[in-house]
């Protein structure tokens, strides 16, 4: 039994203090996910908070079969969709515009390369971008990604392949 299983068991038995540890465990990755979907950090933090509160409210509808992560990401995804409907989509280009493209240093080159990749990911079609974010940004397995997005596994695999192909093409053009 993992630590997560024990915490969930405690919560099911009514010990809601175990929820503190579960929140702390998932907070960083859910924040990272929400930062991708929010126009700014403040709204991302609100979305994270709302995600955990909703997860707690709907907890009695969750039957633990080792898929709490998928359940939590589903709640986060729906919360972000609501937020985007209200406040609009994030503009990733603003983050990258601060960098001087002509300044070279080895460490900075790696940072710039990462910025370019993030911009390219932000430019993907939404159905591909979400899969890339969940798979590589949030380290979900393909099956967990399929669970969160309520898509067949094959569809997720196919869209991921298309996304990686597009990114490779874009990187070639970047040269």
């Amino acid at each position, binding site marked *: 039994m993992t630590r997560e299983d024990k915490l969930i068991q405690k919560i099911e038995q009514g010990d809601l203090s175990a*929820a503190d540890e579960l929140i702390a465990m998932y*907070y960083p990755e859910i*924040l990272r996910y929400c930062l991708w979907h929010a126009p700014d950090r403040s709204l991302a933090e609100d979305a994270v*908070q709302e995600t*955990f*509160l909703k997860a707690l409210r709907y907890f009695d509808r969750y039957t633990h079969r080792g898929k709490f992560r998928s359940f939590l990401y589903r709640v986060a995804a729906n919360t972000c969709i609501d937020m985007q409907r209200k406040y609009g989509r994030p503009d990733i280009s603003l983050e990258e515009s601060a960098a001087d*493209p002509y300044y070279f240093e080895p460490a900075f080159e790696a940072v710039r390369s990462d910025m*370019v990749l*993030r911009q390219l990911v932000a430019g993907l079609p939404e159905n591909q971008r979400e899969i890339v974010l969940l798979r590589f940004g949030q380290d979900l397995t393909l099956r967990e990604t399929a669970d969160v997005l309520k898509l067949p596994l094959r569809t997720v695999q196919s869209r991921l392949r298309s996304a990686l192909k597009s*990114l490779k093409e874009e990187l070639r053009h970047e040269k």
Partner: protein
Amino acid sequence: MKNEPLKNNSLYKETDLKQELSRALHQLPYETGDPHLQATILLARKEACRMQTRERISFARFLKKQIPLIGWKLWGIQGVFLAAASRVLSDCSGYLISPPRLARLLFCLSVAVFMTALPLLYRSIRCQMQEIEAASRFSSVKLLLARLIVIGIGDIFLLGGLLFTATAKTALPADIAVIYLCLPFLLACGGCLFMLGHFPPGRFLAGSTLFCFALLLLFSVPLRQSALLFHPSYQEGRIILCVWLSVFCACQLRYIIKASSYGELQII
């Protein structure tokens, strides 16, 4: 400073790309010990306390509470209806010697039995009883299910009473009378459950009432085509129809619970 090009993308392997993606997408800033994390934990504790102080009630207990709330009204109306229908069957037993006439009457009475519940069903849909949901932590769907069970209990007794009267006052065999009562009831039930799951709440009462009146018209007007429904020799066909309609009703109920927009009105 020269701006050196990015790595040689023509030799970019998929594994490299995946690793680069993973690194790039993990790099959004996050500080450990973030005060916002503590604020979230605090809010979660408050939410947990608020949820624990709400009354928890089992579905069976909630169902029992529906009886003094709405059950007695509905069953009272259905009791009056049963008395009136029994009187009609008794007084008209001479006129109803002809099986098609008796069949038509039972068909119409069965649809009327279903219609006794429509006002209550509509009220449940319209009002949603949000205060009770907030107190009992039930969803709109469970509330509707509780109402349907109360309605169903009344309908079973009502149909049973009609069956007893019809077999006692006329020469109609019980097995045929059962189907004469079940078939139109299931037809009305299936149509209205379909509307419950697919129509907006505001259109349910009008739609279901129109549908039931259309059935009454179909069964009461002596049309040549509808005579097939009442002929004693088509009992097997009627039984098959009953089975099919039962499955249809179950599917509609499942749809309402699992997939319809009815559940979007949930508070929790």
